[in-house]
């Protein structure tokens, strides 16, 4: 349904870096979790993958050392056994299953209600998540209905994905699946809408917000 689809998406540059595999892990979790909620970005991601496939296929081949094929053929059989080792899946309660799509859910380490939330003032609780990546911080944030989101004291960029509820920032309303990108230079004070608690996933000091030439250039292909 068009009405359920997110209205705010990651920057084109960020989608591109995700497709290229150069985006940090925390930001990649945000992009991929947004994609679970956004069919449009799933299609765009498939197209950016196809650009990568086309480019990689066009590279000048570099020969492998002699016997590489034979060595690989000899290993085909041991890999048949490795295939049967599937990871066990964690069980989650209904609220967690419904609110937090994969891949973010796998990073929680428990159900939403059981996590060691930390109070940040009267109306905000935060749950820092341990996601690899130099200098990047990632947190789940719960904001009481009608309350302001935490003040932005960071010096870089904060990207926020709404998981449930909504917040209002100026004229824009960010609901489930929407991605808000804010820099410290933008004066804003987002407030959770009055109907319900707002649950967000925030990545701080992720990729610099750039609307550079690469994303614009690629848009022409991606819409082909």
């Amino acid at each position, binding site marked *: *349904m068009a009405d*359920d*689809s997110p209205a705010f998406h990651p920057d084109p540059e960020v989608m*591109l*870096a995700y*497709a*290229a*595999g*150069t985006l*940090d892990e925390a930001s*990649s979790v945000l992009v*991929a979790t947004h994609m*679970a*909620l*956004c*069919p*449009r970005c*799933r*299609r765009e991601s*498939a197209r950016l*993958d*196809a*650009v*990568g*496939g*086309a*480019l*990689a296929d*066009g*590279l000048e*081949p*570099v*020969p*492998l*050392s002699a016997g*590489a*094929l034979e*060595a*690989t*053929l000899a290993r*085909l059989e041991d*890999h048949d056994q*490795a*295939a049967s080792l599937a990871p066990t899946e964690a069980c989650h309660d209904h609220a967690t*299953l*419904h*609110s937090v*799509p*994969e891949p973010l859910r796998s990073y929680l380490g428990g159900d939403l209600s059981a996590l060691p939330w930390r109070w940040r003032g009267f109306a905000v609780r935060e749950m820092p998540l341990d996601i690899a*990546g130099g200098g990047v911080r990632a947190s789940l944030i719960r904001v009481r209905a009608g309350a302001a989101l935490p003040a932005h004291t960071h010096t870089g960029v904060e990207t926020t994905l709404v998981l449930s509820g909504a917040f209002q920032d100026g004229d824009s309303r960010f609901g489930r699946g929407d991605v808000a990108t804010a820099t410290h230079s933008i004066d804003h004070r987002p407030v959770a809408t009055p109907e319900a608690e707002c649950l967000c996933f925030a990545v701080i000091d992720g*990729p*610099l917000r*750039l*609307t*550079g*030439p*690469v*994303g614009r*250039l690629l848009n022409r*292909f991606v819409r082909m």
Partner: protein
Amino acid sequence: MQSISPPGTTARSHDALIEAIAASGDRSAFAELFAHFAPRLKAYLLRLGADAATAEEIAQEVMLTVWRKAASFDRSQAGAGTWIFTIARNRRIDRLRRERRPEFDPSDPALVPAAPAEADQTVWTGQVEGRLRIAIDALPPEQSDLIRRAYFEDLSHREIAEQSGLPSGR
């Protein structure tokens, strides 16, 4: 690179070769795929900063994954070149960046499905890869170079913009 075409078979598409592996564990299909893709995978990994030994090792691992996961290949979702590229990209993140590659789960109950009209809007197949490559090659060199570097260099786009002398940001 040795190219192995089994006698008595006509040229099969890369998509068909992966499907032959899935259907019957066809080793000659694998050898054909290997001859085409392994040297390109090695080139891709070298471009992204792997040394020659590591690039070769990862290229072989990627081809083993192609063998192992051939049954999950779906040509209506992505062409062979795209599918193999994504395997190589993810293996590189795992091996060289030592990070995980987070991806959405298509069978996740929380996933928002595409509206029926959107779902069959575009089918991206192997032919699309060829069309894209022609389109990229038709660009002015400084523009196609910019796109290649976005995929083949692990730099921020600001660095790419600075090095190319093109403005970043608005």
